Structures are given as C-alpha cells and as structure tokens.
C-alpha cells in the first residue's frame, strides 16, 4: 500500500515531523503537572518517559514496516475490513481530539494573557482556516510547516538558558532523588500529554521515503524533545519554589516575564504570539492524519472528512468554555493517548508479529 513517490518526503523530514508534533502547549505549563508527584525530581521522570517513548516508537515502526503501510492497513490486515475500520476510527478520533485540545488550550492562553474578551470561535476560525490552507496543499506542505516550527523550537530551547543570577536557586533541586521510584514513574506518566504527538508516525510512515531504513530520524526527534523537556523542567525548577509552582499554571511564561529589554518590556507577549506557528503545525498534522484515516476508511476524497472535522473542531472548542471543563477534557485526551499508544499498540504489535509468523509457518 505504498504512497506515490510524488507525495513522499525525504527521510530526514521525519525528525522535524516528530518534533513538530510533540512540542506543543505543554512546554509552557507541564512543569507543575509533573512536579505533583515527584516534586523537583520530576526532570528525571522526563528522562524516564523519554526512554519509554523510544521503546514505543521502536514498536510502532516495527509494526508499520512489517505491515508495509499505516495503522489503517495494520488494522485491516489484522481484523478485516469492518472491525479494522472501527478500530482505526477510534485512533482517528483521538487525533482529532488531540488537535482540539491543543487549539483550545492555546486559545485559553491567549484569553488569559492577551485578550480576555476574545471569543473562542474567532481565534478558532482564523487558525482553522490557516490549517485548512496548509492541509489542502498536501502532506509535503504540512511537512514543510513542521520544519519552520522546529526552527522556532530551537529558539525556545535557547530561551531556557536565560538564567538571571538573582532569580535562580540551585538549592531547589537538592537533594536529588528524594522521591521513591514509584513517584518518579507516576510523574513520568503525567508527562504523557506533553510528550504525546509522536504517534503521528502511525499515519505519516508511508509518506517517508525509505522509511524502513530511516527510523533513526524518528528516534533522534524523540531524543531532541526529551532533551528539550528535561532542560525545560530543570531550568524552570531553578526559578520557582516547589510550593509556588503548583499555583503557576504557565510557569514558563511567568519566567519569561523576568526578561525585559529597553525596546520591549513584555517579551512573553511575543513568545505567546509566535507560538501560533507551533499550534498551527500540530493542528495541521493531527487533522491531516485524522482526515487521511477517515478518507481511507470511508473511501472518500480527503476534503470531505477534513471539512467535517474542522466544523466539529469549531463546535467542540466552543463547548469547552471554562477552565475546569477544558482541564478534564485534557486529562481525558491524555489518558486516551496513554491507553492507545502505550498499551494497545504494543499489544497489536505482539499479535501482529505472532500472526505473521504463523502465516509464514503454515505457508
């Protein structure tokens, strides 16, 4: 089920796609969530989570290359047409929910920090129009946007090393490993929402040239995001005390308010505005994946499911109208991702490998 070579991208794009999909709104506020259990040892949890996602990525790529297609093909080969379509549908719905969660969370940040009176739908319509424009250009355009977004994450990465002397306290991190291993694992679990996004490989895989031999780019991408989040957590913990961080919803933005220039006092406004490019990337990728999946399931043109998804996104964004609903929604999405990609996919992989072996033996 290979894709026409005209629509494929070079292998190294996998690096940008993985990073583009993974680094989202989580960067600004995942610190307090991961610090809930493991306190300020949580940066170690990020490293643990980094190792786990490398394993999951290995499993995913192995599964996809042995099926020689995307997750829809895997499901169809494993379950047959009808049950396979239902299972693929669930994953496509997850991609859509992920897109909605990122969009709504970003709009919330804008509403809290920049424009309190901005209606949700205005921002949603503007961002979705941009995403539609990108997705209608095909996968190669989406991959190109990922490249631009990753350039922005490099900027954000260096932003972590802005450590004004009067505000940092190395004591915060000491004593290291003050928490039990179970706590560290619990915190590692909490990173799943921030780390989510790499599952895009399930749909992207056939679009990569020589995908089977170029898995190193996917692993490199994951390594980069792990480093990014670890450094992010580590440096943020230097600024804010352990009790204070629980009250800071977006710790990273708070830290950026410490930086001022004579020509611009509030650098965080620029940071938030520039964030649009990251958000657009994730939403484009997720909606592209979702609509591509539905296209294959229903055998329609991609435009039809895409438009439906966009309208549904708009509706759902409007329904998530306060912080608490949004929060429980984010939690739901992250537990779905946990269940689907850390439990279900490895299970599918095991079954798939066994079935394949059996087939080979019987043949």
């Amino acid at each position, binding site marked *: 089920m290979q894709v026409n070579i005209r629509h494929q991208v070079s292998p190294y794009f996998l690096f940008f796609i993985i990073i583009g999909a993974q680094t989202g709104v989580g960067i600004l506020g995942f610190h307090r969530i991961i610090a809930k259990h493991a306190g300020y040892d949580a940066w170690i949890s990020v490293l643990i989570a980094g190792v786990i996602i490398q394993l999951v990525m290995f499993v995913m790529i192995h599964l996809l290359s042995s099926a020689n297609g995307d997750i829809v093909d895997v499901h169809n080969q494993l379950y047959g047409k009808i049950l396979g379509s239902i299972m693929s549908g669930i994953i496509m719905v997850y991609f859509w929910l992920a897109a909605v969660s990122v969009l709504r969370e970003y709009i919330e940040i804008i509403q809290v920090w920049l424009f309190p009176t901005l209606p949700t739908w205005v921002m949603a319509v503007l961002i979705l129009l941009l995403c539609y424009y990108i997705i209608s250009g095909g996968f190669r355009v989406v991959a190109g946007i990922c490249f631009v977004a990753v350039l922005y994450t490099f900027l954000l990465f260096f932003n972590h090393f802005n450590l004004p002397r009067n505000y940092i306290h190395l004591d*915060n991190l000491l004593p290291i490993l003050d928490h039990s291993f179970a706590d560290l694992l619990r915190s590692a679990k909490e990173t799943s929402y921030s780390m989510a996004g790499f599952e895009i490989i399930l749909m992207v895989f056939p679009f990569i040239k020589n995908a089977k031999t170029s898995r190193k780019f996917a692993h490199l991408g994951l390594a980069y995001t792990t480093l990014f989040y670890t450094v992010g957590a580590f440096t943020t913990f230097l600024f804010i005390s352990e009790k204070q961080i629980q009250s800071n919803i977006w710790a990273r933005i708070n830290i950026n308010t410490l930086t001022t220039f004579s020509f611009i006092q509030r650098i965080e406004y620029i940071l938030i505005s520039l964030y649009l490019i990251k958000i657009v990337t994730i939403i484009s990728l997720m909606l592209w994946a979702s609509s591509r999946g539905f296209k294959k399931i229903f055998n329609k043109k991609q435009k039809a499911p895409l438009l439906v998804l966009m309208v549904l996104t708009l509706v759902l964004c409007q329904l998530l109208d306060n912080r608490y609903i949004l929060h429980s929604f984010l939690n739901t999405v992250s537990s779905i991702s946990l269940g689907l990609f850390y439990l279900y996919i490895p299970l599918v992989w095991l079954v798939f490998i066994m079935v394949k072996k059996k087939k080979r033996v019987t043949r």
Partner: protein
Amino acid sequence: MKYYLLTISIVILFVLSGCQIVPTQNTNEISIIQGVGFDLTSDEKLLGTIVYPEYRVDETSKVEILKAEGDTVQETIDRSQNEVQYPLVSGQLRLVLFGQKLAEKGLYPIIDTIRRTPEIANTIQLAVIEGEASELLSIKKYGKENIALYLSDMIRQNARIGELPTTDLAIFSYNYHNDGNDPYLPLLKKEKDKIKINGIGLLKDDRLITTLPVKDVFTLKMLIERFKLGTHQYKLSEDEFVVISNIKSTPHYEVKVNKGIPEFTITIKMDARLQEYRSIDRGPTDKKKVKQLQVQIKNKIEQDAARIIMFLQENGVDPIGLGSKYEAHYRDFDLRKWEEQYPNVEVKVNADIEMVHTGVVE
C-alpha cells in the same frame, strides 16, 4: 480553490477587525497606573493610593494621586476609576508600597492579586513604608517628578550598586512560598519632605515582624546574595575608620547535621578595594598596614554578621534562607521541627576578605 480560500480569509479579517471583538485602547486615552500604595484604615479597610501621570498637549506631564477605600484591591481601583477621565490600566505598574500597619497584618491577599493579574510584570518593586503609604506618595515635592518611577528607580539602583539586597515581586514570592525562606522588603521612610531607604523590613510568611537598620543592611546583603559593587564603612576604633569597596562578594554555606541538629558555617568570600581610610596617624597604607586592616575588617564583619544572625534568630525570621539550605542538604527535613530549632541553631560566620588593591596610591 486556494484563491477562493484566501479571499474568504481576507474578508473575515476585515469584517472581524471592524467588529470590535477585542476592545481597543488608545495610548493617549488611558490612565497608566505607575505606582500604588496600600494602607490599613482604622476600620480595617484598605486605603489604596494610585499614582498615574497625566499627559497634556501643551503642558509638561503632571502626576495625579487618587485615594479610595475598599475591602479588596480591585474595589479601591474601581472607586478611583469613578473619578478619572480615562480608564485606569495596570500594565505599566512599577511600584507597590505597603503601609506598616497593613504589613503587620499580612500582605498576601494583595500580592496574590498582583500575581494573578497577567498584565503586571514579575519585576515590579515592592516596599514597606514606615508610616502610611498614602502620606508618602502624596508628598508635594515629587509632584512633577513622578514619584512612582522615582522610587522604583531608587530601590533598583540601590540594589544594583548600593547596600540593599535585590528585591522584587519574583524574589518576594519565591521567598514567601519556599520552605525555609522568609521574605524581606526595603523599608522606606518619609523624613520631612524627603523619602529615604531606612533599612530592611523582615517578614515572617506575609507579616512584617521587625526591621533592620540601614547600617546592618550591607552585612545582610553579604549573607544573602552574590553581588558586585557596594561600599561600607567600618569603625575600627574611636577615631579610625575604613571604607571598603566591594569588588565581588559570595556567601558559601556549609551544613553539618549532628544528631538531628543542624550547624551552619557561612563563609563570606569577598574581594575588596580600600576606598577610604581615616585615622590620626597618617602613615602609608602599605602591605603591613593593609594586612592589619584586613584582619580588623574580617573580625568586624564576623561580629556584625553574628550579631545580625542572633537578632534574626531572636525574631524567628530567616531572610538568609538557612532553612532552605538545610532542606537541600538533609533528606529528613521537617519544616515544623526546623522552625522550633531555628532560634537555637548554631551559625558560625567566617569572613574571608581579601584586599585586592588600595586604589592608585599606597
């Protein structure tokens, strides 16, 4: 298809910008709050004093002062809002002052409001006033000067090159929230019609406990933070004075735990320059003399620091953050137990001062 989409986008952009979805504010049609002061009135209400500049076309700008009472911060602002031509906005706030009575009762509700507001930067200056903040902000002399900017610059420059420890909202809220740290704020005082820094206000949680006079502030700064610049005078005997200029000063903390009781050794490493020396004998400040001065200053710093730490322990405040050093060192740290231990904990101070040079003459 794509042109069609582009057209829609452009049309939507124009329509939306015409819709006034986000209310706009023109810079010349807002009252920019630059400083606020809060006091406690006799009936336990907040008295807010707002400082904002009023720009006129044909005059130089004038600073307006508004006062209003209320139970919450926002109410005082809303009551002031009723008196002004243009809406009050807080994005350029630089200074928040607290009257002594309010500081003794607790600052947290106000700090919390400030932190909650996204427009307000994390680097604004806070200060405690000996007396009333409203009285201090309405001194006539500073009417043209813009008192809010004046005071925030005054605190900032004194922290940067003077004796005052660095303080702002971010540092305050760190110290407030962190276990084993207590916040401290500069203490301002009105004297005739001048305003001056009159020491450091020491807080426990969010309540002002006691104050440290100006002469001890430099030593406290040496104990708290790493810094450059700043001068201080030491009186060696009745008519012998020496002033050193700090080049670089760093405190090092060492914690030893002996049967559950911590012992602290603070080593202040300081490179200094001889700034001024005054005594009856007008001999040269040669190597021997400088060595001798060095020992005398070292003893003086150690005595001062020991006295200040004793004072802090007696009052149960910990601006140095000994508790947090202990917590970083000791895994079984218990905050409640530490607070009981703190007044009796042994703290040794070593000053390791090195006269790097003596200026251009010897």
